């Protein structure tokens, strides 16, 4: 069971970016890269050698690994519909959120290692915007907790859809885009460096560490997709099979949604980014208020 769960997370994660790119290509009327492109990249990078900046210390290589572990553990805490979570206890939701923070810490620390201007820039942007997205995430989690009267993910993520659900979905979707550096916050496949957040931090990485970073990113995307789906769909009330398929469908939907967003939206100027994030916070806050007031009945 445990093995299957890990396999699911590790193996399926890189599928999402591929799907997103497919959707974008399809919208643009191109053929686009194969869906499995990221797998190929990862395998290739895993065999490559590493070029290490003269300024960098071993931490430069170790940090991505720690970040990956943090993300993996976070994913481990997220329940997969009927399958439940790998580990579930009272307050695990907080651990999950802070594991994401740990991953961020490691990536940013590594980015500062080389002393490259882009590393600093990317790290600065990442940690600064995280302030807003984390507030939004917490508001969302609070509203789920209030709605379900529980503080453990398994219970929180099988809500009975309430008035606030749509708001919550919208808010979480914005958080998803921001946390995974998707358009309109960032353009994952641009190489106009000045516009990058996540890529800017990964600039100086190469070989296996880069592979680990890319895989971690895809896992994070999957995590948020699952979170969003489970937060919205009443999986608890469905039969296991239906729930599983609903979850898969939901994740697929979210992925396509991201792809569509990327094809129809342009990247925002950086000064607009906080605006959008604040909107995310407000959406989550409203859902929280709805849960707070509505649930009282």
């Amino acid at each position: 069971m445990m093995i299957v769960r890990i396999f699911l997370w590790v193996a399926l994660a890189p599928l999402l970016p591929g799907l997103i790119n497919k959707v974008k290509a399809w919208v643009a009327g191109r053929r686009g890269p194969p869906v499995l492109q990221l797998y190929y990249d990862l395998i290739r990078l895993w065999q490559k050698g590493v070029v290490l900046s003269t300024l960098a210390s071993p931490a430069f290589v170790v940090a991505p690994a720690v970040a990956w572990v943090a993300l993996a553990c976070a994913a481990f805490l997220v329940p997969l519909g009927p399958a439940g979570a790998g580990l579930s206890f009272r307050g695990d939701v907080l651990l999950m959120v802070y594991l994401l923070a740990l991953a961020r810490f490691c990536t940013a620390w590594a980015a500062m290692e080389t002393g490259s201007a882009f590393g600093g820039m990317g790290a600065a942007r990442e940690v600064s915007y995280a302030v807003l997205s984390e507030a939004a995430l917490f508001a969302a989690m609070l509203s789920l907790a209030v709605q379900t009267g529980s503080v453990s993910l398994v219970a929180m993520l099988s809500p009975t859809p309430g008035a606030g659900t749509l708001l919550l979905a919208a808010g979480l979707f914005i958080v998803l885009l921001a946390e995974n550096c998707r358009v309109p916050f960032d353009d994952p496949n641009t190489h106009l460096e000045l516009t990058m957040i996540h890529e800017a931090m990964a600039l100086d990485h190469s070989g296996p560490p880069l592979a680990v970073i890319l895989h971690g990113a895809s896992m994070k995307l999957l995590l948020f997709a699952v979170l969003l789906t489970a937060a919205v769909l009443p999986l608890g009330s469905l039969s296991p099979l239906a729930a599983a398929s609903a979850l898969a469908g939901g994740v697929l939907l979210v992925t396509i949604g991201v792809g569509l967003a990327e094809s129809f939206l342009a990247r925002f100027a950086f000064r607009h980014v906080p605006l959008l994030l604040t909107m995310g916070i407000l959406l989550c806050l409203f859902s929280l208020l709805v849960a707070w007031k509505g649930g009282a009945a």
Partner: protein
Amino acid sequence: MGTSARSARASFAFTLAGTLVGLLAALGVLLGPDDWEWTGGFLVGGERVHLRLDGVGAIFLVPVCVIGGAGAAYARAYWPDSDSPGSAARGRAWWNALILCMGLVLTISNGLHFLIAWEAFALCGYFLITLDNRRPEVRKAGWLYLASSHAGTLALMAFFTLLAAHAGTWELGPVRDVPPALFWLALFGFGMKAGFFPCHIWLPSAHANAPSHVSAVMSGVAIKMGVYGIVRFGGWLPVPAEAGQVVIGLGAASAVLGIAFAMAQNDLKRLLAYCSVENIGVILIGLGAALMARTHGNAAWGQLAIAGALLHVWNHALFKSLLFFGAGSVLHATGTREMSRLGGLGQTMPWTAGFFALGAAAVSGLPPLNGFVGEWLIYLGLFDAATTRAGFAWAVLPAAILLASAGALALAAFIKAGGMIFLGAPRTKPAAQAHECGAGMLAPMGVLAAACAVIGLAPGLVWPAIARAAGSWNPAWAHAEKSPFATLGPAQAALAALAAAAGFLLWKKSRANGLRRGLTWDCGYRSPAPRMQYTSGSFAGIVAGWFFRAFGSERKFRRPHGPFPEGSILLERIPETVLERLVEPAGAAITRLSHAALSLQHGRLQSYILYLVVGLAALGAFVFLEAKP
């Protein structure tokens, strides 16, 4: 020299012995069922000497002893007689006095003696901060500390006098029939020491200009005495109904604003000082929730909140002192606290860098370290409160969200600090010529770092102590529920193990694939110069931009223009807003008033007699108006 060396050794031994005894006493109380109590056979100031150490006092006594010992050890290498003859010896004396007085503050259970110990402790702090009183900025900072601390002390004089008047005795203990409004007085008096927003005005300059081991004890332990006072009397007095909400509000404000200011600092020690404001805020959020729970039927989540607050008292003491020791080593090695003049110290001082990184992760509340454990408890309390949907608990919702963003800001601030100081290339010559500090300074850091790790990986160990303290704070919670860390602890340990393993494997793999050293690629710059690195100012730019109004930042910007632009400037200064925008103008007004008054003392005898006559007339009028009815 010989004598001073001997006296130094003797004093150190004395300190260690004292702190050890204190630590054992505290642990004895925390792990045992009953309190330690001693009543002296003589009177001081007409009151019988009476010491009591209960759970709450013991919780606070532990960091006093730990940091007291570690700091004394650190000072031996950091502030030795050879560098600063005279002031080193004075420093040792005041240090020991400070530790002793803090111990007394925590144990004394008589209002009059409490005031005495309190003021003595404050004065010791003053003399430690101004050890190097030849530097004017140190004197300025010291005076600001002294002034604010005295303002607090006077409030406490009023508080204890009122308390004694209502309770009919100076003896301290749970009291029921006193007006709840007294709590506000205590909150202000102790708050001036605790340094939550906006009572923090003295804190940044004092902690930045003090010798680093003093900063460590002031920031890690001394301000906790203020927290102790609030916790203690929040527990003993009948508090007003809205006390919980107010304390939570203060906490949230301190948390966010404190860390936002920290983010914007360029002076490493000022950054750490502002970060202390944030952590006091975190503690207050927990305390406020607990107060709320206690005023509304001792809900169980209150126990989690207070436990988290008390645990955070320990954690903050540990990692903040660790960070200040690190800052001290950097200062010692490079002679500057300005991050924009540092960089790349990781290569020359790997150990300091490592310890600092650990401290940074801990203060950012990241698993699997101790910072997370404490905040986790507080969050749990807040979330549980939220799930009750009780009307009075509304305050926990904004508190939780603000606490989260404060955590994210802390992460940003410490990525900035660590990155600017230890990573990248040295920005100046002194930074390039830095050297690792000796074992005398590294050992204390190691001890504190180990403590941070242990609490993080095995929180189950400390739970009994914390629960005991929570129980003695509010007897209703005495029967401790089973440790909430049952799953979290192992999970954290596992996380640590996995991370270590993964890191090791990845390093192996990279080595196997072949590891080439090369210039930083940075999109193909051939010769990246240190000046090209991101600066601390630009790193903080985004956040500073959000808080621009709140800070009242001062900005000077000259864009380059024309085909041959001459030098362009961008200067930005983040003031200590409350101090420079509110307090100092008021002070200036009063000074003007006093100069006006002094101009009446101009030396002309005729006018002096005129004043006398005026006084006579005024009093006469006053009396006859008073006496007519």
